């Protein structure tokens, strides 16, 4: 009998050994994968009700945690929510976290690995855990001005950035929404607000359309064709380009028309100056057909297209130019060369492209975060300008700049001019549907010592409205930054 008891004892011990094994597995070996499981909202719960650090613009909080009397000790409050919704995003328990709130969540919560010392000292002093503050690169006045330029009820985005540092000075979109609706502690209230907001046309809950929405860039893409042409060695600044009223393709019943609203039809050959000033289509289509799809794709990628890794530190939607060769037929390549068809870009990407030209061919890492500070105001992280890539040579950049100046001085972007300042610019009018266009302006000033890049897109507008809402507003933004 005792032998059987000993055997049973071995079975019992085996059961306990299994338990030690499974506990070790859960709490040690699988702990990391469990902690990062998408269904796991533990970390979120742990910090949701904490005193998360504020998001600051010019020293003033645009998002802050306010003490409450409820169990959930702090309530997130957004000041000027409509103005900043696309940047701050929101931090909800069951409907996700977006924007700076998500991208900087560890710093804001004070749980990042380098915040260990603060956590320990807070634990010892008994202070309630407090997160770090995140100061944005945004200029509040510029942000307000840009926001006021987009009429209510009309979708549109504006990006203003410093081409030398990559700092984003203003980034606005309409329509916007009230982020406070998503900050409630009541799950059902948030879920209702979410369903309601998701259903609204053109509203992007997950980040400003300025970096989350793709648009056909239209003629602003011609700057990349120009760079590709000059870099190829097959063209130089004096090259004469074919400028037919229509580009025909053998064997296909399709012709690519020239741009209707400028003076393109007045001559059948064009210099780069003329072609850019009037935004003619056929010269750039011919460049693309001559250089081939690979060359244009490569150039587009040198300016930031097809790069899915850009973070500001919020993830940026990937702008696209069709990749591997053979995916575009001849009409397709011609149409893509003028920023139509399969070419898709975020307003931020067009601003980055412009900034690269402005900055002598060096594209800087765009960034929204200026500084991160501990609760006792020690700076633990601050913006250091970083070169993202060399997009083109300084010579090519200089040449394109000269041409962009003449587009403003003599061409169709004249509305962007600022008295006493050399402004470089380029417009775009991408046809979408029903005679409506995506109206673009992108440019920088002063041309000889660029301080600011402005990119404006007004999607789905008629030509006249588009022209009114782009170049003249760019002029006002240049003036505001340059204090003219």
């Amino acid at each position, binding site marked *: *009998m*005792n*032998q*059987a*008891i*000993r*055997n*049973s*004892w071995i*079975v*019992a*011990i085996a*059961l*306990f050994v*299994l*338990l*030690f*094994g*499974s*506990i*070790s*597995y*859960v*709490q*040690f070996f*699988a*702990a*990391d994968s*469990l*902690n990062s*499981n*998408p*269904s*796991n909202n*533990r*970390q979120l*719960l*742990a910090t949701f009700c904490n005193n998360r650090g504020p998001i600051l613009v010019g020293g003033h909080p645009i998002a802050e945690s306010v003490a409450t009397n409820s*169990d959930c000790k702090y309530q997130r409050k957004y000041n000027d929510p409509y103005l900043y919704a696309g940047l701050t995003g929101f931090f909800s328990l069951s409907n996700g976290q977006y924007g700076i709130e998500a991208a900087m969540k560890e710093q804001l919560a004070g749980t990042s690995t380098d915040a260990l010392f603060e956590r320990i000292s807070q634990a010892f002093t008994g202070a309630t855990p407090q997160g770090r503050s995140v100061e944005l690169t945004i200029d509040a006045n510029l942000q307000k001005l840009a926001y006021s330029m987009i009429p209510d009820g009309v979708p549109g985005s504006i990006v203003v950035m410093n081409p030398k540092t990559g700092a984003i000075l203003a980034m606005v979109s309409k329509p916007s929404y009230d982020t406070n609706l998503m900050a409630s502690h009541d799950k059902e209230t948030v879920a209702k607000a979410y369903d309601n907001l998701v259903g609204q046309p053109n509203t992007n809950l997950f980040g400003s359309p300025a970096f989350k929405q793709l648009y056909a860039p239209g003629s602003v893409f011609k700057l990349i064709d120009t760079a590709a042409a000059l870099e190829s060695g097959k063209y130089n600044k004096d090259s004469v380009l074919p400028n037919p009223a229509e580009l025909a393709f053998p064997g296909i019943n399709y012709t690519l028309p020239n741009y209707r609203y400028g003076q393109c039809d007045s001559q059948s050959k064009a210099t780069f100056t003329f072609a850019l000033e009037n935004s003619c289509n056929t010269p750039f289509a011919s460049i693309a057909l001559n250089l081939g799809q690979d060359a244009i794709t490569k150039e587009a990628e040198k300016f930031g297209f097809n790069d899915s890794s850009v973070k500001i530190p919020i993830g940026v939607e990937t702008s696209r130019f069709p990749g591997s060769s053979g995916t575009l037929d001849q009409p397709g390549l011609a149409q893509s060369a003028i920023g139509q068809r399969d070419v898709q870009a975020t307003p931020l990407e067009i601003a980055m492209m412009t900034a690269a030209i402005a900055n002598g061919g060096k594209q800087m890492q765009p960034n929204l975060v200026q500084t991160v500070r501990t609760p006792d105001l020690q700076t633990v992280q601050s913006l250091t300008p970083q070169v993202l890539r060399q997009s083109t040579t300084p010579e090519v950049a200089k040449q394109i700049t000269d041409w962009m100046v003449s587009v403003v001085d003599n061409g169709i972007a004249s509305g962007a001019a600022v008295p006493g300042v050399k402004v470089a610019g380029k417009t775009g009018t991408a046809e979408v549907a029903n005679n409506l266009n995506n109206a673009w302006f992108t440019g920088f000033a002063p041309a000889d010592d660029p301080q600011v890049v402005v990119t404006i897109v007004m999607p789905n507008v008629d030509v006249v409205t588009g022209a009114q809402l782009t170049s003249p507003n760019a002029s006002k933004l240049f003036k505001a930054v340059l204090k003219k």
Partner: protein
Amino acid sequence: MSQLATVPKPRRNIELLLLVLALIVGITANALVNLNLGKTFDNDFYTQCVVLTVLSLAVHISLRLRAKYADPVILPVVVALNGIGLAVIHRLDITSGDTAGQRQWLWTGLAVAAAVAVIWVVKDHRILRRYTYISLALSVILLLMPLVPGLSAGDVNGATVWIKLGPFTFQPGEIAKITLAIFFAGYLSSNRDLILLAGRKIGPLQLPRVKDLAPMIVAWLASVGVLVFQHDLGTSVLFFGLFMVMIYVATSRISWIFIGLVLIAVGGFAAYQIFPHVARRIDVWVHAFDPQYIGAAGGSYQVVQGLFGMANGGLIGTGFGQGSPQTVPLANSDMIIASIGEELGLVGLFAVVCLYALLVARGFRAALGTRDAFGKLLAVGLAFAVALQCFVIIGGVTRLIPLTGLTTPFLAAGGSSLLANWIIVALILKISDAARRPINVSADSPQTPHQEVQTP
């Protein structure tokens, strides 16, 4: 039956020393909860300290008077577990606003009183052998109680295992665990020769006669009945495992294990086929991390939240009050292991499991040491029941096996479980007393004047 040499010393002072350590564990845990969650040390706290100490000493003194050779490790282990359980339940009460802690204190008092009563009333564990068939009848009544209209508390979390007693609810199945163990021990110790010698031999297997299979059939019916009518898979497994180990120890025949495993396989497969709730348990276990199963009613939300909590705790835990164990449904009862894992970490949970292993080991030690077959069987049955119960619930929480609703002995909020487990401990203490008592004082002796040993 080999006789192990035992040291004929009472060891009550060692018990007292260990008891002080156990009380320090329990009281410190409770104090940490108050400290970390910003509660003041009010009268409640000091009352609780005194109550826990008095209850522990009551058992200790009873042992000194009525079972002075009892194993000195068992009581401190149980006091430590019970104290940790009270602290964790208190901690969860603070976050959820529940009052489970107060009920648990009340039940702890009742359970300890019951244990003391057992120590005093059951002069020798062999008396219980007289009540073999009464225990069987009692088991049947206890198991049927939740199905009686008017008495039944209805369907609670998918199982019909509760009865209403005024303001309290009670799980009679917990007590049935003890009465069934007494019945099996009594029946098997009386009939083991018959079972062993009669029957046909087929190949290497010695098969018992059909009439000797009766208790196994009873056990099987009880298990299946619990499963079918009460939807309680965990208890069903527990009863059957309890019986299997007891019949194996009684006969030392692997053939019984074989028959048992066949019955389990048949029953399990049939249950999987016939009962949707069993099939559902298995599906939920296999696909636990599938968002569809997490979101579904009766899905894997509970177990997955528990795992997330334990992972959050990691090696050393978040500390009391620093985690969010309250996100897990039933955090203070079925999922209390996940709560401990989260806030006390792998280290804390290992300590708790070690305490269980120690308790079970001492139970087996008592079984080895005691001289009568009934005592051996009862001690093995009760100790193995504790081990199996730990395995089913902790294994379920850590997703080693499908999660079924069994209570975690001494830790989980719930009065019936606490009561039953303290009675089990009292019985094991009595058996260990018999095991460790010097042979020459086991009969009437001047040192133990109250000891009126009943020879079976």
